[in-house]
């Protein structure tokens, strides 16, 4: 064949990425309303809201609005820090609080931004989804008059009749999974709807994600509980140390499971410069899904929560719980239990706690104690310090008090603190003593005896139920798939026109338009149409922007039909 014209130009300024949002209206295209009445204004406002410019501004505002949520302490994450901040900043603090700066992510203004953003998104994406659905079913757009002006185009002559050429084009393009329509002496073909589908899927999945988050916030709950070795926790409201229900949560929805902590073990790095670093936390528990269900063991670890009764149980923290026995002046056992201690420093787990003995006769007894899991003398030899977080050589010192603990008044008290020291509770003279496990101390004034029975541990467990969890996960997965697809698949159109030329030959024009950049697929199609034996010197020009092996993900796809040489 002779007279081959090859031309291919770049489409300036378009990219695959532009494919997606380009359908939004450009700013400035919305005419300002004049005398259109309230409905007109509403329509105008809606159009404004759904423009890309508005969406961009809202996106930026969401980002900006989130900043104080990380800079200032937040009630949802660290309420105690908010209190401290308010204490420190007497004038600024209350003002910040007025603007919900300590609850940014639950603030009305933050909600206003993201709700507007999502309305804007919905207003843009949903109509587009309908349009896309229609265009997927509609015929591919008719061939433009001048195919030579398209970013990719080729012209050649052949001996086959125009009808044969078009039939062949239909076959080749169908084989490449194009949608083909032949009319008016030209074949129109289109494919790559998946790109727009992915784009829409991504945006709709974000909407779904927002709904899933809301679902969890409404119907879920979250609670924390401290559980000592040997104790059992039953899932009921009264037993939680802290409980945060969702807005639409009713207390009767707690699954009636029980959890018993048999043993808790922490492993520490024993040598090297990471000595003392915890390497694993293991809580051996037994649980029942229902009160008369079968008891099952579970190894509760970080990254290994327990799923039971629609809720999840997590291991959050741990600490020491020494066991004490206290006898009163008469020699009766007035107290025998493990007592949770709180760490005073995280490195070596020096911990403190109090023992309250309201049943002691004739005076109530109380003790303040410090625990050193691995007691050693400090460098100057004057103090005891803990040298390791693990219980290698546990020692407690107790300081004794007697009098009225104040429990009888009915005011709730912290289990970690003594109230009324120096007032209702008097220190016992000479009532300080250092105890190792198994050792006892008889108070000098004969008001009682305390025994350090041994060391146990406690864990703090978090229990939560979030009905939005799975929907959120699905939405998130769809969003990732959607965005990846929309970036990888581009819509492509190909037109083939065959018309009678001089000397009984047929002139075939092929034109290609890809949203984004030209692809090598076009050349493959032309080659398939012309057949291998009909293309002298058909090496694609490297500068033509349509080389083989490009970045186009579709370029490597198996080409549909085998190329059929034409007669």
């Amino acid at each position, binding site marked *: 064949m002779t007279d081959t014209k090859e031309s291919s130009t770049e489409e300036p*300024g378009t*990219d*695959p*990425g*532009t*494919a*997606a*949002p*380009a359908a939004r209206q*450009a*700013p*400035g295209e919305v005419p300002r309303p004049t005398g259109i009445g309230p409905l007109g204004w509403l329509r105008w406002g809606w159009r404004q809201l759904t423009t*890309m410019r508005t*969406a*961009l501004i809202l*996106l*930026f505002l969401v*980002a900006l609005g*989130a*900043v104080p949520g*990380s800079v200032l302490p937040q009630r*949802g*994450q660290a309420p105690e820090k908010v209190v401290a901040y308010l204490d420190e900043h007497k004038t600024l603090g209350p003002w910040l609080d007025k603007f919900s700066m300590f609850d940014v992510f639950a603030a009305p203004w933050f909600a206003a931004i993201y709700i507007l953003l999502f309305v804007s998104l919905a207003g843009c994406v949903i109509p587009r989804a309908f349009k896309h659905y229609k265009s997927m079913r509609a015929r591919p757009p008719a061939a433009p008059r001048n195919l030579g002006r398209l970013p990719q185009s080729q012209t050649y002559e052949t001996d086959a009749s125009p009808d044969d050429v078009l039939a062949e084009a239909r076959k080749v393009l169908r084989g490449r999974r194009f949608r083909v329509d032949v009319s008016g002496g030209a074949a129109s073909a289109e494919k790559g709807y998946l790109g727009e589908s992915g784009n829409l899927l991504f945006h709709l999945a974000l909407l779904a994600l927002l709904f899933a988050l809301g679902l969890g916030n409404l119907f879920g709950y*979250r609670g924390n509980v401290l559980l000592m070795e040997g104790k059992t926790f039953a899932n009921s409201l009264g037993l939680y140390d802290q409980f945060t229900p969702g807005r639409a949560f009713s207390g009767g929805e707690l699954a009636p499971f029980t959890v018993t902590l048999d043993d808790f073990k922490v492993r520490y*790095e024993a040598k090297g*410069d*990471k000595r003392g*670093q*915890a*390497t*694993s*936390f293991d809580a051996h528990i037994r649980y029942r899904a229902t009160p008369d269900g079968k008891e099952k063991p579970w190894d509760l670890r*970080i*990254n290994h*929560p327990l799923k039971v009764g629609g809720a*999840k149980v*997590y291991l959050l923290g741990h600490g020491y719980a020494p066991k004490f026995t206290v006898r009163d002046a008469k020699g009766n056992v007035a107290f025998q239990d493990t007592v949770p201690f709180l760490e005073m420093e995280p490195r070596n787990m020096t911990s403190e706690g109090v023992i309250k003995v309201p049943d002691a006769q004739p005076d109530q007894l109380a003790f303040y104690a410090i625990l050193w899991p691995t007691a050693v003398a400090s460098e100057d030899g004057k103090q005891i310090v803990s040298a390791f977080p693990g219980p290698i050589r546990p020692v407690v010192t107790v300081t004794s008090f007697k009098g009225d603990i104040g429990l009888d008044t009915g005011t709730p008290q912290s289990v970690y603190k003594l109230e009324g020291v120096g007032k209702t509770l008097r220190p016992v003279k000479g009532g300080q003593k250092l105890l190792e496990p198994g050792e006892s101390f008889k108070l000098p004034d004969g008001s009682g005896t305390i025994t350090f029975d041994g060391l146990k541990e406690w864990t703090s467990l*978090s229990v*939560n139920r*979030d009905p939005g*969890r799975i929907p959120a*996960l699905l939405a*998130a997965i769809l*969003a*990732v798939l959607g*965005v990846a697809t929309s*970036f990888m698949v581009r819509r492509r159109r190909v037109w083939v026109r065959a018309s009678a030329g001089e000397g009984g030959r047929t002139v075939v024009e092929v034109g290609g338009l890809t949203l*984004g*950049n*030209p*692809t*090598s697929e076009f050349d493959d199609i032309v080659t398939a149409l012309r057949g291998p034996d009909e293309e002298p010197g058909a090496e694609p020009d*490297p*500068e033509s*922007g349509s*080389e*083989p*092996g490009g*970045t*186009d993900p579709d370029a490597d796809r198996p080409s549909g039909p085998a190329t059929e040489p034409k007669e």
Partner: protein
Amino acid sequence: MSNADLANLSDKLMLTTVVMYIIALVAYAADLGFGRRRAAVAEQAEAKVLVGAAGAEATESAEAAPGVDDAPERPAVDWIRLAVLLNVLGWGAHLGVLVTRGLAANRWPWGNMYEFLTAISFAAVTAFIVVMIRYKAQFLGAFVMAAAVIALGVANIWLYDSVGPVSPALNSYWIAIHVTAAIIATGSFTVAGAATILYLVKDRAESRGKVAAGGVLSRVPSVENLDRLSMRVTMFAFPIWTAAIIMGAIWADQAWGRYWGWDPKEVWSFITWVIYAAYLHARATAGWKGRKAAILSMVAFAALMFNFFGVNYMFSGMHSYA
């Protein structure tokens, strides 16, 4: 080899990497500054970038390019070859740093900030090498090398930590997925950021008519191609960043009992994501294209960097593993 030997080897390879990157940096810069290639060669390189960025690899013309380089006016020192050679060798050493570190600690080598930053700069250099091969983007070399040298310097001077076990919260297979995705995305965003900076510089110079023929900027591709390159790399990184955030949420749900808790790291990942999303949209919006979109991309990159340095050292949160 014992673990201590491996750890030692890792530290030595780190030194090798930094030295090679510094030499590569100098060589890339020398190539930009006084590579004696004729302007025509630079223009041809530009054409290749254009073609490469246009969605295809210009294999054949790439073969032809060295031929032009070898033309009579071959420079006394072939800076670009030296640069690429040392860059690739340094990359190998860099890989060695991570592998030996991982073997010494017997875990994924991104359990603390030192390892994380080392891995991110590795990802950035890898992304650059890919972009260089695909789009002939050697001109980015000096910038990416500078970023890598600075990152490795910071890692070694301020963040160094000896080999050790990770905290139990990190002891999960998710570290292989979530952190790796974050590393790849961050590394790629860095390369996109380098291209965007160049775009802004060249765009500014062009609008002032200050692009001297034969100057550094004339050896850099046109603003359109820089813009497009930056866009392409961002489009690669953005879905990975999205996935990294989502996989982080899944992991958080496993480890901490909630998939999203507005921890400072989560907040800043979200901010970064939102601004990159804004950039991708802005790039397709009339009135925002070009310079404004590029500035958005820079803001997003700044948020990404703040997420790494600021969040870990200024705020306390659940991601405070430093």
